[in-house]
């Protein structure tokens, strides 16, 4: 779980221009060496990505990477059916939205006392939360499965999305508290004097001021849930309820007779929303702000 969160917010750093080093003796040689190294790494890293893009539009797609002789959209039309993509994508959207919304609401509420009051147990609570952040909770799906069986919530979309919310909650509380610490307390004073309740202050003062930060937290949880395969794979059994990740896997899992073109097309359809969200967040919501909040202790 940890991977996911901090990483997403950290990604925002990329949009910030680097500070170029001062020109030094041999600086030009180092700079051209750096260019060559980066270009080589880029080519190596690009190959599997290029395969994904090319195979999706190649009528003769295989596991090889080749420039298509003609272009086709047949693979896309083949997989764009209710059973295969539309319903699973709707399920993905549902799971991720619920997980993201529940996490953000619970985190904002929890972050308020942690950020604003000096609670005697506040520090312990935060360290417990940080501890939870580090546990491989989404990797221990075996006990989660048997607990779901016992509790009678196996194959439940609600329980699955709540479990994903619970798994992201520790890092989300941590991030939200750091964002909230940056909102000046003085702004709330006037409202408090005017008799605004705690919920009013959170709703009308805190939340509007930390909208960018909450956007980061929501996106992070949403992207995590959208990309999660293991959790719904174990907890959701009926095909009607499964999200896109599970559908792709069960449809293409038997690699013997893989339809590579359709696999690539399906993968792209499933990936585009995540890339789009990432692009929007990293462009719009401020870079170093998010990085420091994600990283600082």
């Amino acid at each position, binding site marked *: 779980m940890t991977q996911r969160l901090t990483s997403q917010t950290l*990604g925002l750093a990329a949009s910030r221009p*680097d500070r170029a080093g001062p020109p030094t003796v041999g600086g030009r040689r180092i700079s051209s060496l750096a260019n060559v190294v980066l270009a080589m790494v880029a080519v190596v890293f690009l190959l599997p990505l290029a395969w994904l893009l090319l195979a999706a539009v190649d009528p003769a797609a295989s596991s090889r990477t080749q420039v298509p002789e003609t272009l086709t959209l047949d693979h896309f039309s083949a997989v764009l059916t209710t059973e295969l993509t539309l319903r699973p994508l709707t399920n993905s959207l549902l799971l991720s939205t619920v997980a993201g919304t529940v996490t953000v609401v619970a985190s904002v509420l929890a972050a308020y006392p942690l950020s604003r009051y000096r609670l005697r*147990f506040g520090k312990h609570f935060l360290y417990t*939360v940080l501890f939870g952040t*580090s546990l*491989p909770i989404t990797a221990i799906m075996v*006990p989660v499965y048997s607990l779901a069986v016992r509790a009678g919530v196996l194959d439940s979309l609600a329980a699955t999305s*709540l479990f994903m919310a619970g798994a992201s909650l520790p890092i989300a509380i941590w991030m939200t508290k750091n964002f909230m610490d940056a909102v000046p307390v003085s702004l709330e004073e006037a409202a408090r004097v005017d008799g605004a309740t705690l919920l009013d202050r959170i709703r009308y003062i805190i939340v509007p001021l930390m909208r960018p930060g909450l956007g980061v937290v929501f996106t992070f949880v949403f992207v995590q849930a959208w*990309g999660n*395969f293991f959790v719904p794979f174990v907890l959701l059994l009926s095909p009607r309820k499964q999200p896109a990740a599970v559908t792709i896997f069960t449809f293409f899992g038997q690699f013997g007779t893989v339809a590579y073109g359709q696999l690539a097309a399906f993968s792209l359809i499933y990936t585009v929303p995540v890339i789009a969200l990432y692009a929007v967040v990293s462009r719009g919501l401020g870079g170093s702000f998010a990085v420091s909040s994600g990283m600082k202790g």
Partner: protein
Amino acid sequence: MTTLAPEGVAAYPVPRRPRWLRGLRIVGRVLPLAPAVVILLLFMAGPIIWAVYGSFTNTALTGSNARNPAWIGLDNYIKLFGDPTFFQSLRLTVLFVFASAVVGQNVLGLGLALAMARAGKAVRAIAGTIVVTAWVLPELVAAFAAYAYFTGNGTLNQMLGALGVSGRNWLFDFPMATVILANVWRGTAFSMLVYQAALRSVPPELTEAASLDGAGTRQSLLYVTLPVIRSSIATNLMLTTLQTLSVFTLILVMTSGGPGFKSSTLPVFAYQEAFKFGDIGYGTAIATVMLLIGAVFAVAYIRLLGLERERT
């Protein structure tokens, strides 16, 4: 537990009030924590407690032991510590984490961040986008792309063939090497971004002073830059280790843990024992071991952050 610290409230000082009124006020203040606490208890603490409990039972996937499992004490753990496959899985997990996270992602990520700081703008933008894209992809999609790359008729053998080298069935002959390389490909962006942010925080005066004193590039990197960013290095090592410990989908799609158990790291091993061989209790014991390993790293990570805080 729920009383205020002696110094009172950070934001709003509490005037002297009757004790019961203050008590009420404190309850009101911690009430917003309730939803988060309930969710964490149900969906984090619940599975953890259940994992420990379930590892002492003979719960099965199907049959009568699925509904009415019996308490079997330490039997699962006795089986675990007599199971050579478990120790192989443990070794593979250590290898996977060490090779792909500690060495691969961290060293390559640091190298890329250093190169980015010196490279031309266009090269930096293009390379950065490509590396980050591999990381933003859903794990499943990354796993499919890596599968197509390493499979018998895949892109790697296609390129080797063009060079006149005959290929291998990489996923079968070298399962660990392929999943390690795939995880480096997929995960390096995280370390790169962390180190890019860290390098930006190094004051240029420091490296300038070093070069004025006659330090070469390598010396300035070893004795100035790396010591300054050491806390980022430590944090990043912990985070990538914890992330890599729970990698499952990548390995499931590429090799299914095979051939045999030759690429079954602990998450895959637990999954196989529980869902392929139907022994939920045994799979749960493996999951509990994973939780313990994660907990050790988590404590180390928290202490590290605590130390950093005191230092700054």
